[in-house]
Every structure is written in C-alpha cells, then in structure tokens.
C-alpha cells in the first residue's frame, strides 16, 4: 500500500484529500501544514509519496521539494496547486517533483492512478 504524506496549510483540503486517497486505497500516514513539519515527518516516516501544496506559508512547496527529497530519497513528490500555471509545472519539474497537478483536477481516477503507479513500480 502506498504510504502518503499530505503537506498543505488548509485543514479542509487535507481532510478531503485524505478521504479521496482512502477511497483510492492509499494510506495517509501523516499530515503537515508546512515544510518544516513535513521535513520531520518525511525523515521519520519515509513515506512513498508526498502531496505538497505549492502555496505554503514560509518555505513554499517548490523550494521545499528538494529539501524533502533529500531527507526521504525514495519518496516521490507531487506538487498541487489551486492555480493552473505551466510556469509552476516547469518550476515543479526543475525542483525535482514527479508531477504537478492543479487542485481542481484531483479526483478518484487521478488518485487511483497514483496507487496504480505505485503498484506498477513495485511490480517492475
């Protein structure tokens, strides 16, 4: 089962995302509302996947991505944002994130694909 860390400063979004991920069969093992908290969790829990919001207070998600990756090298990072922005996509890739997903595109099929991705990767 894919173990997921959610990093977002919006409790409502975390709750909804957790529900979506549960439904898709992913296990949410931690939630953080900023990069500093996420760093501690990433180091101790070593999740498989981190869903990180771009617009975070303090260190933003794009800056935070390499820091989290450094602490948990096997963890994939998916950046999410309320804003569609190809610039963000480029920056996310530059920062080392595996994907950039606008928040309004999140639905069960996307979440399932993450799980499948994981399984596919495990299989290979």
């Amino acid at each position, binding site marked *: 089962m894919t173990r997921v860390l959610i990093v977002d400063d*919006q409790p*409502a*979004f975390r709750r*909804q*995302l957790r*529900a*979506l991920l549960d*439904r898709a069969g992913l296990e949410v093992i931690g939630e953080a509302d900023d990069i500093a908290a996420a760093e501690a969790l990433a180091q101790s829990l070593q999740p498989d996947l981190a869903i990180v919001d*771009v*617009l975070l207070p303090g260190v*933003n*998600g*794009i800056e935070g991505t390499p820091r989290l990756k450094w602490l948990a090298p096997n963890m994939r990072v998916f950046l999410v944002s*309320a*804003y*569609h*922005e*190809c*610039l*963000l996509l480029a*920056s996310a890739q530059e920062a080392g994130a595996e994907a950039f997903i606008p*928040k*309004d595109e*999140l*639905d*069960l*099929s*996307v979440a*399932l694909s993450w799980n499948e991705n994981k399984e596919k990767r495990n299989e290979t």
Partner: protein
Amino acid sequence: MKPDMKSEMDRRERLWRGLLILLAMALPALAGYVVYEQMRAPLPSLLNALFVALTFWGVGVFVLWRRFPQDAARLFFLLTQCIGIGLLFFLAYPQKSNRPDWMTVLVSVGFHLSASLLFHYHLTFPVRLGSSRQRRWTLVLVYGLMLAVLAYRLSGTNAGLRVSFLYNTLEIFAAVGILVYAYRVYATPDDRRRLRLIVLGSLAAALPSFVLYLLPTIMGWPYRMTDWMVGPFIVIAPLSYFVAIARHNLFGIDRFLNRALVYAALWLGILLLYLGPFLLLIRFAPGDWLAQMMAAAGLTLAVGLAFERTKNALQRLTDRLFYGGWYDYPAVIEKTTRTLAGCVEREQLLQALTRQVPLLMQLRDSTLSFDDDSAALAPLSGAQLTLVFQGAPRALWNVGPHRDGDELSETDRRILDTLAHQAEIALGNVLLIETLHAQLEEIRASREALSQAQRRLLRSREDERACLARDLHDGPLQTLIGLNMQLGMLTSQSGGASAMDEMRAEIRGLLTDLRGVCVELRPPMLDTLGLAAAIRSLAKEWSAQNRVTVALDLPENSALQSLPGDVAVNLYRVAQESLSNVARHAHAGQVTIRLVREGNGLRMDIEDDGRGFAMPDNLDALAAQGHFGLVGLRERVNLIGGSLNLQSVPGQGTRIRVEWRPL
C-alpha cells in the same frame, strides 16, 4: 554761456594750468641747485632745508593734483611753493654772507608772499569771511602793503628788515586770528573737527617761531635761535594741514597721504638706523671693512625682523591721527549700502550694522536687537533708530558716540538716518526671505507627509488586496476545490453520470473565474516564485490575450531574492500597467521586458515598437491630456524610491525605464 566766453575761460584755464605746472617744477629744480652748490656745507642744515622745503612742495603739489579746479587748492599750492622756496634757501644757507644776493631776494619775496597768501587763504578757507567786496579790498590792502614792505626790506637797511618781519608776523597772526575766529564762531562738530588740527598746528608752528625767532629779530634782542632750528617748528604747520585735510577728506588724498606718511617715516627710520652706526664706525674704525660688513648684515637683519611690526605700529598711529573721529562719508554710504543690499540673513544684517558701520564711521559701539529678542539692550548714548517693516517696528538699532568721545554731529545723524532707511529695506528682505523659508519648509514637510500617506495608502491597498486574495483562496476557492474533489469521487463511483459532469464543469468554470480574481488581486507567483516568474507569467498571459510577442530578458529568480516585497509588487504593477497601456494605445508588434540587476539596485525596461507619441515637457502635461496611467506609474515608482523615465518618439515606439536603488 556764450561760446566765445567759454573759449576765453578755457584759455585762462590752460594758462593757469601751465603756470602752475611750471611753478611746481621750480622748487625741485632749485633744490637740485642747492644740493649741487652745498655739497660741502654742514649736513644738518642741508638735510633740514631739503626736508622742510620738499615737504611743503609735496603737500602743495599733491593737493593741487587731486583738486585742481578748486580755488582753495590753487591758493594752497601757491602758498606752499612760496614757503618752500623761501625756506629752502633760508635754511640751506644759514650764514647770510654765504648766500648770493638773488637768493636773499627770493627768500624775502617768498616769505612776504607766503605770509600774505596765508592770510588770503584763511580769509576764504575753510569759511569765506565777509562779503566778496570786503574780501577784495582787504586783499588789495594786504598785498599792497606787502609790496611796499618788501621794497623797504630790499633796500637793505636794518629798519627795513625789522619792518618786514613785523609785517610778516602781523599777517601770520592775522591769519591765525581769522582761523581761531572761524573756529570759535562756526563751531559745529564737523567744522570743529575740521579746524581743530589746523588751529592747533598753526599755533604750534607759529608760537615758538615767534617767541624764539621773530620777536628777537624784530626787537633786536641777542638771544635768538639759529635760523635752521626754525624749520622743524614751521613744518608743524603744513603737517597739521595734511592731517586736517586728510581727516576731512577735503582733497580726497587721505589714503595716499596716509600711506606716504607711513613709508616716509619708515624710510627715514631705516636711513637713520644705517647712518648712525656707520658714522660712528667710520669715525672710530675707519678701515675695518669686516666690522662694517658685520654691522651692515646685523642692521639688515634687524630691519628685516622689525620692518613689518614697525610698519603696522606706524600704520595704526597714522590711522589714529588721520581718522580719529573722522570718516569718509561717501564711502560709508557706498560700502554699507552695498553690504545691506546683499543681506539675506539676520546675521549679515547684524554684521553690517554692528561691525561695519561703527568701523567705517569711527563709532564706539553699535547694537541691533530684533523685536523677538527677549533681552532688550540698554540704549547707547549716541542715537537710537527704529527699523520698521510693514508698519511695525521690527528692530532697534543703537549707536554709540564717536570713538574719540565726540557727540554725533548733524551730518552723522543724517548719514545714520540714510543707513537706517537702507537697513529697513534690508531688514524687509531678510524678514521676507525668512517667511519664504518657513513657508518652503512647511510645503516641504506637507509634501513629505503627503507622499508618506500615499505610500501608506498604496501599501495598505496592496496589503488589503493580498489579504482579500488570501481569503478568497483559503475560503471559496478551497471550498470549490473540495466540492470538485468530492464530485470527482462520486462520478467515479456512479460510473459517469452526465449531471455530475455538468456540475463539475460548472464548478471548474467558477474556479477559473475566482482564480482570475485572485491573480488580479495578488499574483501568487510573486510571493512564491518571485518577480521574474510573476512577470514571465504575466507576459505569457498578456501575449496570448493580445497576440503581441513579448521578448523577455529576465535574471534568475535567485538574483531577485533579496528584493523587498513592496518593490517587487510595484515593479510588477508597473509592468502590468505598461503592458495594458501598450495593448490600449501602442499598436505594437513586439514588446521587450528587460530586468537588469545593477549593483544593489534594479533596472526594468519595457519597450514597444508601437506608434509612440510626442513627448510633452513633463509627465504632468500627460496627465492634463488624460494619460493618467503614466502619471500613476510615476507615483508608484516614486513611492518605492525609484525613478521613472519615459522616452517616446512618434512612429518609433515607447520605452519606460524604471530604476530602483535601495536607500
């Protein structure tokens, strides 16, 4: 005046001039002759004669030179030349037996003429006494008697000599008497000052000569001082004239005489200093060259060391002698007026009235108090003048008496009144300038306050927009996203109900609109990715909307990391506003946005190749034409402490350059 009369006057004038110049050359020529003749005569009498005669000559010539047209000056010149010639021979040849006859005649003529001229002179100067008819008859009598007495004298008898001395003495006493009379009768402070020295000098010169020389000669007494000793006493008279003339600036030669006197005295001092020791050396050690050279070197050293100090001391002494109690009226007015005209500060006015004026007018002291000074100054014994500005007394000028203790004369008061009037104007200037300064300061302060308020307003507006954007982002946007996500779960489960898909599309449309509002309020890029990314995003969107290519030349994000938040926001807004201006007016094919780091600062250029416009002289004219956008840009840039430069040529596009530098 008829032309022929005028030419007649000219001829007379030329004749006078020629005669006077000839006469002025006579005395030096005669002196030269005497020096040539008297090489082996006793030195004291020769030097004495030359000194006395040339003093008279010099005074006369200079007075004539400076004030040629004045009758008094010509008379004075004639007087001095006659005395000079008489004294030259008289003193250079103490023994009458050594003297050629023609010289004796010249001496007699000189003395008689000069006594009569002295009388004539004082009859008309400094005060004209009597009517012109009375004066004419008196002069005819005096000169006529003089001729008679001269003739008797030249007959060579002892009685002739006595009578001539008697007549001369009488004339001199009459002249001195006239002077004393004029002094006593016309005794305004100015005249007193003018006459005091002449009277004193004349008395000092006449009394010893009379008691020790003239009286014994007339009475035939045996105790009579030697002829050459008369010289020093007689010299007192012309010197007192010098000083009196100079003090009153009668002939405008005070400065010249002043310096001449100082240097003559110095020269004489140096001469004596050298001469004395050398005479001793030559007498006691005639062949000792070494001693002579050492003495010369020592003396030169002494002179060199003492020269400056001695000169200054002499100058002070001469100044006191010349200017004690007297001053140069036109110069006072001229200099003070000039200084007052340049006054723009109180301190300058204070300096002019309390330093310059007392110095120029030889006043003991002077104070100036402004109406807002708390400490009122005690009035001085001289004069008190009130300086009025706009109908209200604004300053009080106290003036003390003269340095020599004399009360202020009528002339002094008139001059002080004139100066006070000038000072009032200057005070007016000073006060107006002070008011202007104060107002300028107020304007500057209120402008500063206004600009701070604008800055606060702008910042608070940006803050509010950011806050609003955050609220929208955290509230409705999140809610919609959540809703969308939940619908997403449902659709997957229910296997693609079309109503659900429609709802989702609806929500997505709403999200897009809301996001647009948020971006407009506060571009999220600016806070996450920085200015360069925000501009890049802005340019991309704008380019897509307007179908105009935007070329970007932006630095790395990290290069702009240290940029203060409000600077980044305002530069972003400038870019945003400029782009929207280009879209509205320029009809451009391409826009270039360039951000260049310059030291600690930053330069942003936004250029388009559109149609441009004719640049007005300043941006305010643009506002008048309705282009408020550019004016608003400038205000924004001013508020972050930057500068905005706009260049445009019709047909050749527009360039906006913003330069910002941290304080």
